[in-house]
């Protein structure tokens, strides 16, 4: 079987994305988690550029540049500043059952591949085989959000989910129309700023960024 070099490169990027998603799932240090998020953005940006090169979809170069600026430079920079100001740079989260979470993650990947199979068969893009990985990383980020009890890791999970969705869009359809992509990027950026304000509000109100304290509003 002969797979073109660019396609191999894209598949490798996809595999790296999946590995990073698992690494984020088990990473307990907040600082390393943010760095992993930046790496995820970088791999995403490279794979988008390779797709753009191999399929001659020039608008994808803009997407790749946007990803690079937003998700590799700007968002990690904001997050780094935030954790420094909040003095939680060296925080380590206590997580139990990491092996169990990893096993659930494995099951999710299998599920994602099954769900994506009929769609990838219909896709005409050279990246169609990576759609399963895109869905898997969305689900893994979702799992990460559920298993974390601190505010910053939850937000990193949220942003990683957006990365997964972006990857899904590139692998199934060579990206969304530019105006939509710009809109999504704007939402993510504004959302990040609002969350930044929010972290401080949570800290003032609860004396901690641990969401375990948020248990007042429950239906009894």
């Amino acid at each position, binding site marked *: 079987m002969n797979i073109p070099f660019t396609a191999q490169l894209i598949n490798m990027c996809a595999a790296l994305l999946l590995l990073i998603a698992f690494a984020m799932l088990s990473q307990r240090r907040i600082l390393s988690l943010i760095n992993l998020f930046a790496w995820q953005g970088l791999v995403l940006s490279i794979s988008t550029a390779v797709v753009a090169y191999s399929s001659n*979809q020039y608008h994808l170069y803009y997407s790749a540049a946007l990803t690079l600026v937003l998700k590799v430079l700007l968002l990690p920079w904001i997050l780094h500043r935030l954790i420094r100001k909040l003095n939680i740079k060296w925080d380590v989260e206590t997580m139990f059952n990491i092996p169990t979470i990893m096993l659930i993650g494995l099951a999710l990947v299998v599920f994602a591949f099954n769900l994506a199979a*009929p*769609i990838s068969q*219909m*896709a*005409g893009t050279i990246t169609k085989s990576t759609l399963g990985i895109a869905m898997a990383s*969305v689900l893994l980020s*979702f799992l990460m*959000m559920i298993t974390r009890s601190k*505010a910053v890791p*939850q937000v990193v999970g*949220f942003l990683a*989910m*957006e990365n997964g*969705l972006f990857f*899904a*869009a590139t692998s*199934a*359809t*060579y990206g*969304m*129309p*530019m*105006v*939509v992509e710009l*809109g*999504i990027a*704007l*939402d993510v950026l*504004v*959302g990040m700023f*609002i*969350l930044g*304000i*929010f972290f401080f*509000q*949570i800290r*003032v*109100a*609860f004396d901690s960024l641990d*969401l375990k*304290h*948020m248990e*007042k*509003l429950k*239906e*009894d």
Partner: protein
Amino acid sequence: MEIFWVLGIPLLGGIVLATFGTGRHAPELNSAMSFGTFLAAVVLTVRVISSGAFTAWDEQFFVDAFNVFLVALTAFAGFTTSLFSRPYMRIEQHHGKLSINMLRLYYSMYQLFSFTMLLALLTNNMGILWVAMEAATLTTVLLVSLYRTPASIEAAWKYFILCGVGLAQALFGTILLYFAAEKILGAGGTALLWTHLNAVKMQLEPTVLSLAFVFLLVGYGTKVGLAPLHNWLPDAHAEGPTPVSAVLSGLLLNVALYAVVRSKVLVDGALGSHFAGNFMMGFGLLSVVMAAFFLSRQKDVKRMFAYSSIEHMGLMTFAFGMGGPVATFAGLLHMTVHSLTKSAIFFTVGHAAQNSGTQLMDGIRGLIKTSPTIGWGLALGTLAILGMPPFGVFTSEFMILTTAMHSYPWTMPFLLTALGVAFAAIFGRVQLMVFGETTGERLPHPPALIPVFLHLLLVLMLGLYIPPYLAAWYRQATALIG
């Protein structure tokens, strides 16, 4: 051109109020901006009614009978809520709950929130629709946590995360929609335009579209407050300032439902079956039943009415799910009357809570003695929302129930039980709050009552007599949805 003003005024208002929002006349400026938006919406409505649907700006915007009616409703209730928030926020400031900078944030975000809702309604691009819905969450999240109490921050966090995750599903649905559309319409900007999609909906790949619809329904349904994805809604309504509860309940939920219905039209065309309708009926019915039973366990008055919103949104989703001329007409009418009645109720509840110094229903007593107009407003509003004739909610609920009885008789026990339980729960509580002995004092500023009675009057009118042009307008919209 009208579209430019409808969107431009609130956007400008957001920027102006962010700069001058600390001034003494900021509340008046806020109302003036909303009034300008309302006027522009009226002009737009007149144009659409007289000359039919049209697209603007490279087809990026699209107005037809269905969305123009929601634009008019959104602009109108946005304006009356801004009138209400003027005395309400003054009293909150008087009570020392809000600082001048928080008010500036409030006014600015209020205008930007109107902008995002109107953008979601007017855009022709399904992708921009998603962007606007997400932006609507972002603009309101800081409003929900405006008081900075631990409970309000918890509510806002829940709102942000749940709606964010929900909308991520909707984004995936939009990607799938684009994936199916791109095969027919080709890559590029036009493949997500609703008008283009609507023209080729018969050719779209059915399996992809059905999967896309499930994601879109779950995603936007989170925002509609459909059970079991409703968890954010009661918290956000109860903990945010009352004008925000009024616009969330009366307007935002409608806009989210609008997104679901727009998607349904495409999926129905592609599948040629009742697949989307069945899903919506299921979610709708579950929401109605679940909300009715949670209603009776509430202690906080705003929380109780938030559950009532879930119930009514469920009823509308159910109506649009059934489809057909009568049910869809009833769904549209119910959207209108629910939004008017529920915001009127929140206006009175807000003042009632200020009057008693608590949102707990046990603490609110004898409104009719301390401030008769608030008491009567709440009593009448409650009768209207419970579907008592001659109010408009009765008309729409009656139409929904008769259609359901005719086409889906098995739903009747669920619907009737739920409506009965909700009636008993709300009526009993409100009666105690309105009548009974009290120790409450008068408010330091006169409350805003024009918006309350204006809304209730309109609801009453819609119950007794729907003007022919309005009926024709609903019928046009009904024909578009099918």
